[in-house]
């Protein structure tokens, strides 16, 4: 079944270091087929290389999730292209796509109980035949993935026994077991306290650096993006306002327009911006 994957999978990467390439991609929602679109996204262009950590930043309803769906290949852009390693993602065979792109979403509700290691093992699904039994190699990769997220001790627990932060790590481990080129995370810090948030971002930073994953994080947390991202895409009402390093993107006027609060930005000695609320005292 894998061999019949659409031919685009085989084409060579556009450039040695570019992994994700978004070219003038746009999308629009409308209530019915004929009515005018209620929400339009884009057109947006940006690129990300191997071991880049890219943050998609914006308030609620700015189009972050829609952009993530385009990156994941779930929805096809109305115009433009989204490419991973030179292949258009929305036209990839489902399993081939799952070998290239892993998507970590907010936790879903489990219907039947499942063990942590069984859950992580699911990440190996795209690499097998339709009816498959896990191999020795799959076990090793799942064990490694759990170790990489610091969750080795959890492997025999039931999923529902875990705390929010632990569950997040296990979901991340399943994504690692997919051995993806591109790792997408949808608001991964939402249910975590500040300690958990920093720990997760450090871990993602490390994964990007060591495993040469390209990591894309959708978030509305300015501080975290400023501290950990290589590049930031700032979205507002479906438009891409700025793309660049945090220092380039974090312009007080632009941030105030997007987040609707008075903000101060200072560039710290390490070249990364720090954002704080501007108060009148």
């Amino acid at each position, binding site marked *: 079944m894998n061999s019949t994957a659409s031919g685009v999978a085989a084409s060579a990467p556009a450039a040695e270091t570019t992994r994700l390439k978004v070219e003038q991609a746009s999308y629009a929602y409308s209530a019915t087929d004929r009515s005018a679109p209620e929400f339009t996204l884009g057109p947006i262009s940006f690129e990300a290389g191997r071991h880049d950590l890219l943050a998609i930043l914006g308030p609620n309803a700015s189009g972050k999730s829609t952009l993530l769906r385009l990156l*994941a290949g*779930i929805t096809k852009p109305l115009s433009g292209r989204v490419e991973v390693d030179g292949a258009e993602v929305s036209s990839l065979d*489902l*399993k*081939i*796509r*799952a*070998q290239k*792109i*892993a*998507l970590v*979403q907010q936790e*879903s*509700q*489990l*219907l*039947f*109980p*499942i063990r942590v*290691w*069984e*859950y992580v*093992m*699911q*990440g190996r*699904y*795209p690499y*097998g035949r*339709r*009816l*498959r*039994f*896990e191999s020795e190699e*799959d*076990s090793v990769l*799942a*064990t490694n993935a759990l170790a990489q997220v610091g969750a080795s001790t959890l*492997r*025999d627990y039931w999923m529902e026994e875990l705390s929010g932060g632990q569950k997040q790590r296990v979901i991340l481990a399943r994504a690692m077991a*997919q051995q993806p080129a591109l790792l997408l995370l949808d608001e991964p810090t939402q249910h975590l306290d500040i300690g958990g948030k920093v720990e997760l971002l450090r871990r993602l930073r490390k994964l990007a650096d060591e495993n040469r994953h390209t990591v894309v994080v959708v978030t509305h947390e300015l501080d975290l993006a400023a501290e950990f991202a290589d590049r930031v895409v700032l979205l507002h009402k479906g438009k891409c306002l700025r793309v660049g390093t945090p220092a380039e993107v974090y312009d007080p006027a632009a941030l105030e327009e997007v987040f609707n609060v008075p903000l101060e930005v200072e560039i710290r000695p390490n070249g990364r911006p720090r954002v704080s609320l501007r108060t009148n005292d």
Partner: protein
Amino acid sequence: MKPLTPRRVLAVCSLLLLVLFVAVVISLRMGAYPISIPDIVATLFNRIAGRTDQIPSEFLLVVFGLRLPRIALGIIVGAALSTAGAGFQALLRNPLADPYVLGVSSGAALGAIMSLVFAPHVAGAIQIAAFIGAGATIAVVFLLGRRGGQLDTATLLLAGIITTSFLSAVIMFLMTTLSGRDLRGISFWVMGDLATAPVIDLKWLFFVLIIAAGSIYTTTSDLNLILTGEQEARHLGVNVRRVKLVVYVASSVLTGLAVSVSGSIGYVGLLVPHVMRMLFGNDYRLLIPTSAIGGAILIVVADMLARTLLGATEVPVGAMTALAGAPVFIYLMRRRVR
């Protein structure tokens, strides 16, 4: 951390097949004509070895002419209903799903009766009509069971109950207006029993059972992922729509097959997968084959009790399964609502 291996599936299934064999031998012994268990085993092995001439002719008649066909029918029906139950549970993401509870059996029964009315002498028509009835009913129940675009457990079960009661009323109406035709009894369609031998050759039923259950089996890796979340499964490369279509068609075929020859035997598809989940876990690669064999065991035992419990008078086998199944259903429902 021990991943499931094909070897473990084979080992567990062999064990269950052994239990089934014991149940069959005991069931063969039960009845008016007394045969000892060693005689039964000897008869079976002689037959398998092709030494038919060494079997006493009355044993040949009682074992192979009377008792075994009914037991074989029970095995096919039990395996079909139980596999269909596990299939519907995955399809509707609901551990309470069962062909009988959802009204699918009633739909199949109505289809079967219609075919008896309109095409009484066409071979296989009753099976095909029962399959269409099953498939149409599950589609209706699925649509009725949605609330705000989501499948809701309580709404789904209510939809099933209402559908069952409506279809039973239609069946009653048909049976009353068409009395005099050869449509079997009302209790056959509503409760189910194995007393009447079907017109169709058991080989065909067995063939369809293997094809339908086998095609569900090819999707079991995908079902495991779908059960942790459809969207996530899609992101992991599962073709969710194709898998659901296969399971939908195959489960409807299995229900239609069972109902066309045994009426609406209830709760098998609920009871057996539940016990197998408790014994062997939720992995569908193990659950589907163990449920199939377990369903066969349940029906063989239930039918043996139905034949012998009250002496000469028979109880419909569906009454036996309902006696066991309804309390388990209540237990499962209360545990979920809690």
